[in-house]
């Protein structure tokens, strides 16, 4: 198992803030909108440098999506910022009609996604956003794993034409992707080559997958670990190539079991190369208040859960072979 160096500990939303500033410097058409959460979205630096290219919308997310769609008509590249819940579920119809169906070049940037929002509880901890955004025709869905990757993703989506959902979070997590690692939309990132089981992880679960890989290695299990930072378009070739080698798979995501990365992978496998797949995800329930770490343990989003899932997947593979 490859060793990963923790370069730093930072939140992914700060990667967004730095990436937005850089994207703004590179392209004068980049503009930003925020629904009264500037500090939470780390947009301050962009606003300071480009005040005329920032639009405070107030607590009015539906309007924010429409104004962003309109700005694209004049060639602007709008980045909207609010919590993931208010970036998706609250404004699904606005995104569907004015952005996705109208093919507008809006970047929907969503912070505080998933359980790791923590103490605010279930009203704010959206676990359905990847599913909703995946279902929209033409929508690109990205969920990077650390500060550096979120920064790179933010800059990459500015250069990609079309609607994008970019999801990131609040807690401070290990930074382990090097700053110069290119972010290629739709191209999965191989982290550790292995032979016994494929672990496909996204977002905050990628580091937990690496931790799981070390535990599995101690038990003599050689895990392949792949970072699926782009949920849609999904890198089917990378997934199939890996599972054809290992024969079984685990998905890991900070999202509802229904509709997320695991479902997407299940579809690829069942249609192309039926294989045992174990999904680490929230099991059809809402979250609750608690610290991010407490919640990840209570709802089963841990490295231990990934290890258990990998062992189950391998056992099923052997049963199939026997």
């Amino acid at each position, binding site marked *: 198992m490859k060793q990963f160096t923790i370069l730093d500990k930072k939140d992914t939303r700060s990667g967004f803030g730095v990436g937005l500033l850089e994207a703004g410097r590179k392209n004068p058409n980049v503009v930003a909108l925020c629904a009264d959460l500037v500090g939470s979205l780390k947009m301050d630096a962009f606003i300071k440098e480009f005040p005329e290219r920032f639009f405070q919308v107030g607590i009015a997310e539906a309007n924010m999506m429409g104004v962003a769609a309109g*700005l694209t008509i004049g060639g602007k590249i709008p980045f909207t910022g609010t919590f993931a819940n208010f970036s998706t579920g609250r404004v699904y119809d606005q995104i569907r009609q004015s952005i996705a169906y109208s093919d507008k070049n809006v970047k929907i940037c969503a912070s505080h996604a998933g359980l790791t929002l923590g103490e605010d509880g279930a009203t704010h901890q959206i676990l359905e956003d990847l599913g909703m955004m995946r279902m929209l025709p033409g929508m690109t869905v990205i969920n990077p794993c650390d500060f550096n990757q979120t920064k790179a993703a933010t800059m990459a989506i500015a250069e990609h034409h079309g609607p994008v959902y970019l999801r990131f979070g609040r807690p401070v997590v290990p930074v382990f992707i090097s700053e110069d690692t290119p972010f290629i939309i739709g191209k999965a990132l191989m982290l550790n080559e292995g032979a016994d089981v494929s672990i496909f992880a996204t977002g905050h679960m990628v580091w937990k997958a690496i931790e799981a890989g070390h535990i599995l290695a101690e038990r003599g299990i050689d895990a392949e670990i792949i970072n699926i930072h782009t949920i849609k378009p999904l890198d089917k070739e990378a997934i199939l190539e890996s599972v054809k080698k290992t024969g079984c798979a685990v998905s890991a995501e900070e999202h509802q079991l229904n509709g997320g990365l695991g479902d997407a992978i299940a579809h690829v496998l069942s249609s192309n190369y039926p294989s045992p797949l174990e999904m680490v995800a929230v099991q059809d329930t809402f979250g609750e208040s608690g610290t991010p770490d407490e919640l990840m343990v209570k709802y089963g989003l841990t490295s231990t859960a990934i290890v258990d899932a990998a062992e189950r997947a391998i056992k099923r593979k052997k049963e199939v072979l026997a």
Partner: protein
Amino acid sequence: MESVIQDSTPKTLEELKDISSQVRRDIVRMVHGVGNGHPGGALGCTEYFVALYFHLMKHNPDFQMDGIGEDLCFLSNGHISAVWYSVLARSGYFPVAELSTHRKINSRLQGHPTTHEGLPGIRMASGSLGQGLSVAVGAAQAKKLNGDNHLVYVLMGDGEQDEGQIWEAAMYAAHHKVDNLIATVDWNGQQIDGPTVKVMDLKDLPAKYRAFGWEVIILENGNDMAELIKTYEHAKTLTGKGSPVAIMMKTGMGYGVDFMMGSHKWHGVAPNDDQLAQALAQLPETLGDF
């Protein structure tokens, strides 16, 4: 930007009335042809679209999505698409013959307008109500960022004013001084389930926009071409002064076809063969039917 043609060379009032009559024929024939659609609001807003595209706006039928260097028009209450399609075709955006495909399979003229099929002249999809004002506001702000000194027009329904997003957008437009925008409410007093006063009373609609910080003009007869043009010429003089401009445009639902006039029952119903003949008898053919 130089390629923009000023096809809106001021037409005489008689010419504009003739175009309106032909557009009304198009509307009833389009809706009859497919057996469904929304003739009432479309007939009521005919003078509005004819005036914009044949007289008031600087626009380019050689369509560019970004609309830089021209005035833009958005339709928020997308169900009245038939009138917009007719006016877009008649002003050169696409062949008039294509009007016959309205709402039929494989058509670019979808039941509600969309960019998805690539129909020239359409810059956003609409149909799910309440979203058009926000989009128009964003487009107007992009014009300001681009140093593009042209106007953005948007039409909404009065029933559509029930949607909360309208008021989010109204607040935002005034706060951000989006003063290159002329928003119009088709104030015909009707929505699908009945008169607006019964379904959801809008109370003093002009006062509401004024309270949000808009310049508001009331157009008493939006089906009187002369009065309509005069009102919009006046509205143009109010742009660029720090406030968005709203026009409360009173129209008759179904205007031009006597048995459809003023009735919410013609919001979303197509005429049968006899009703079509009755309607066409009231509408002189001026430019030739599609």
